[in-house]
């Protein structure tokens, strides 16, 4: 039996407005508990919501970037349920008339293929607060603490159609959403701080089957890696059950990243009836054509367009272009290096190679890179003009990463300039040949076809003697002349 996984994602993105969706309280991350929860956020009696215009601007920009319809009339509704992190006892959200209607985006997979994923809709809503379960309180055993700083932070919930067929596709989709919202500058997209969160609806069916299987909803998966693992492990669980003749229960499940398993959230099993109805404290929001068109014309270059331009302007491969344009910061970084060094291909290699390794090792984003784009361009320039070899360049790069200054300063200070004068290279070649009697003898006796390979030993010795600074092309040329003279 061959199974097919069917995945739809609900992605929550926190919008990076200064104030909350319905109040003038700050949305800054990391403030002491409840210091950014005003009377409205706390649902104090008699308080009323007034929506934030920036949230509508951001949501509209997002809709335009997703090639989606923009709801010219959108209506907030109340979703009713009790939970301590939800002060009003209802979440103000959108249902029947959301700000963003259906749309479509293209995702790029690692094998180089692309696929379209349809957007069902995206709506504006308010975030809930946080419950702290782990803390121990003096005034009561078995208590949870409630911090409402996050309550009321604007979110867009982006609901896809069940168009994804593998965990990898889900990750590619999520990365695409991440890249769009960060390109637009409407969210910092930081999954570790919860700025971007993902719920996955997962079901499986036999390949060829048209009907969707019973789905489970995986809640709050907070990293790209976990999205992939959670979906895989949940699909395996469902397949195991079905292959054993069992059936899937439609339920909400939580992914436990430590155990790499999903488990049922029993407390949510009680059938919810959210009793949505239009929020009587808020009026319909009407966006006119001028407003939408102005935002459309002001949209920044988005990842797909940028990748296409990188391919044509800089002759990058599709793979490199996609990789570099996933994040706006890395695309900008690349473009600076490429322009300043005049070597786009080398720039792409350096960013994808040494720089990526460095950032990965230090757990830094490209925006926090210890080597600036200007510094990297300077380094590439020195390789191109043969001041240093590519091998030495790696050494210089590491030094730059340690804060030793730009490429010229490091080369100067450490004396790494490539040795290219014939006299000193000839001297080194002579010394190595003199000290390697046995190897010279072997070389002379060897078959002609094997000789080029045997030169490696001598090159290595010479490079060692020159501390890597000798120009390798010159070593090759002079060495071959001298060895051949001994034949």
């Amino acid at each position, binding site marked *: 039996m061959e199974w097919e996984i069917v995945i739809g994602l609900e992605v929550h993105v926190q919008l990076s407005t200064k104030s909350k969706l319905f109040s003038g309280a700050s949305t800054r991350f990391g403030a002491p508990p409840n210091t950014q929860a005003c009377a409205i956020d706390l*649902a104090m009696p*008699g308080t*009323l919501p*007034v929506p934030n215009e920036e949230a509508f601007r951001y949501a509209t920009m997002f809709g335009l970037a997703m090639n989606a319809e923009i709801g010219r009339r959108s209506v907030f509704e109340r979703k009713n349920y009790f939970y301590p992190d939800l002060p009003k006892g209802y979440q103000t959200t959108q249902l029947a008339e959301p700000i963003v209607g259906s749309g479509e985006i293209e995702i790029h997979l690692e094998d180089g293929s692309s696929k379209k994923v349809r957007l069902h809709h995206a709506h504006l809503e308010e975030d809930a607060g946080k419950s702290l379960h782990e803390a121990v309180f003096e005034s009561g055993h078995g208590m949870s603490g409630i911090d409402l700083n996050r309550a009321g932070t604007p979110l867009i919930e982006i609901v896809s159609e069940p168009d994804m067929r593998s965990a990898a596709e889900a990750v590619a989709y999520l990365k695409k959403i991440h890249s769009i919202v960060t390109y637009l500058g409407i969210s910092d997209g930081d999954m570790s701080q919860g700025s971007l969160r993902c719920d996955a609806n997962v079901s499986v069916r036999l390949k060829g089957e048209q009907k969707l299987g019973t789905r489970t909803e995986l809640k709050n998966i907070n990293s790209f890696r976990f999205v992939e693992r959670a979906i895989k492990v949940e699909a395996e669980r469902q397949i195991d059950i079905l292959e054993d003749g069992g059936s899937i229960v439609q339920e909400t499940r939580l992914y436990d990243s430590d155990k790499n398993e999903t488990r049922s959230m029993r407390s949510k099993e009680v059938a919810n*009836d959210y009793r*949505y109805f239009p929020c009587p404290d808020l*009026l319909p929001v009407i966006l006119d054509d001028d407003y939408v068109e102005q935002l459309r014309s002001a949209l920044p270059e988005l990842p797909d367009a940028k990748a296409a331009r990188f391919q044509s302007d800089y002759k990058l491969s599709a793979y490199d272009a996609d990789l570099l344009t996933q994040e706006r910061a890395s695309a900008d970084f690349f473009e600076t290096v490429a322009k300043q060094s005049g070597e786009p291909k080398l720039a792409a290699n350096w960013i994808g190679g040494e720089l990526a390794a460095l950032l990965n090792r230090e757990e830094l984003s490209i925006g926090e890179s210890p080597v600036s784009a200007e510094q990297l361009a300077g380094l590439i320039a020195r390789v191109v003009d043969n001041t240093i070899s590519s091998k030495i360049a790696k050494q210089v790069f590491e030094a730059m990463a340690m804060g030793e200054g730009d490429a010229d300063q490091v080369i100067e200070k450490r004396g790494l300039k490539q040795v290219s004068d014939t006299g000193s290279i000839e001297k080194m070649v002579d010394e190595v040949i003199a000290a390697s009697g046995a190897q010279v003898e072997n070389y002379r006796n060897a078959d002609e076809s094997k000789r080029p390979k045997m030169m490696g030993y001598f090159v290595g010795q010479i490079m060692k003697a020159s501390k890597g600074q000798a120009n390798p092309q010159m070593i090759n040329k002079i060495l071959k002349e001298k060895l051949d003279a001994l034949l």
Partner: protein
Amino acid sequence: MHQFTIAEIIRGLRDKQFSSVEITRHLLDRIQQLDSNYNSFITVTGEMALAQAAAADQRLAAGEAPALCGVPIAHKDIFCTSGVRTSCGSRMLDNFVPPYDATVVEKFNSAGSVTLGKTNMDEFAMGSSNESSYYGPVKNPWNTDCVPGGSSGGSAAAVAALLAPGTTATDTGGSIRQPAAMTNTTGLKPTYGRVSRWGMIAFASSLDQAGPIARNAEDCAYLLSAMAGHDDRDSTSLNRPEQDYTLNLNDSITGLKIGVPKEYFGEGLSTDVAARVQDALNEFEKLGAELVDITLPHTDLAVPAYYVIAPAEASANLSRFDGVRYGHRCDDPKDLRDLYMRSRGEGFGDEVQRRILVGTYALSAGYYDAYYNKAQQVRRLIKQDFVQAFEKVDVIMGPTAPSPAFGLGEKKSDPVAMYLEDIFTIATNLAGLPGMSLPCGLVNHMPVGLQIIGNYLEEARMLNIAHRYQQVTDWHKVSAPSIAEAAATEGE
């Protein structure tokens, strides 16, 4: 001094006949002596009132004080008052002292008026008799065995008992007009959105509207001028210029077209009440107005539609009272569910619980279309009735309530009978129209109210019409017998 109207107090303060501190102290004393008979106040803020009065006297002495500076009033206990307990008539908020003022309160404070205290009300404004208050029923000054109407029963009774010359109140389905009718006071519910709802504890957000209760239309005009206006903290607040409602009180009403809906004079209306209302209509004819028969065909659907929409909105509005951040919390909750269930079970009274359950039902899966959606459709039909009527007439008149005040306890166990009390007032809330009630006679020594329904934002016109009527009639000047007697004794 307690007999003075607001207009008289304004003049008296400026003519230095008395100071704000003097009249404030006088009314505070009177409240202390008499209110145990009526229970119209939940909280009396004596100290604060005297401090405000002293400050007002200074402003008055310096000149340039706003009209209401130094005028003592009382606020319905639904308006949040910074530093003063705001209970909304509920055990749930018995301990709730908000650190903020409602916009209405803020506006009166900045006008320099003096707050005598917070008036009693039906719990969360849900009721038509003031019997659902956690602080006990309010008694009608006209007959203390009778209810004063509700939910603003305390605000109406305080004015009727001459404990305050004017009060603030709210009206979701008749809660200003019906108690005004039952206590021989004048009350106005403005157009929805004319007065800010910020800081006014919500019952049904799309219906709630604040307004004044006073002894006559002129005083209501003074109070409304202070209360009304746009507030950018309330999304449903209308952005229209503020106005002085006292300016047009004396305009002529010759040629005024008064619509008389036949549905307001049918079954359920006491014949005595109908007769008093007819007397008033005849009086308007004498003043040069023309009576026009009209029809509001969906009138009998107003109560059913209202008792879906209002409870539905209330069921969500009251979810915030959960025992977590403020208000009543049950003792020793064993888990989170227990905390919610018992805090809300103990904190809310029967009527509030009933309406939350009805609203929950109307919104629940499988019933939404049949109840909530249907009611919102009917609501549009009701509004269209009025829109069509106002193409032919300037105002609509009829009775405020089907009968005069009923006995305490009479309808308490029959919610549907109680709901029908608001049969003539509810439609204006559904349509968002302004409505007012003014005294138009007595039936068996109990007051009867005439209702005036105006077109959107026509409050000034309505006050003008009411004022002209009150210049040629004395019904609004009649005090409850016990109050009048006491006043006469005092005068001797």
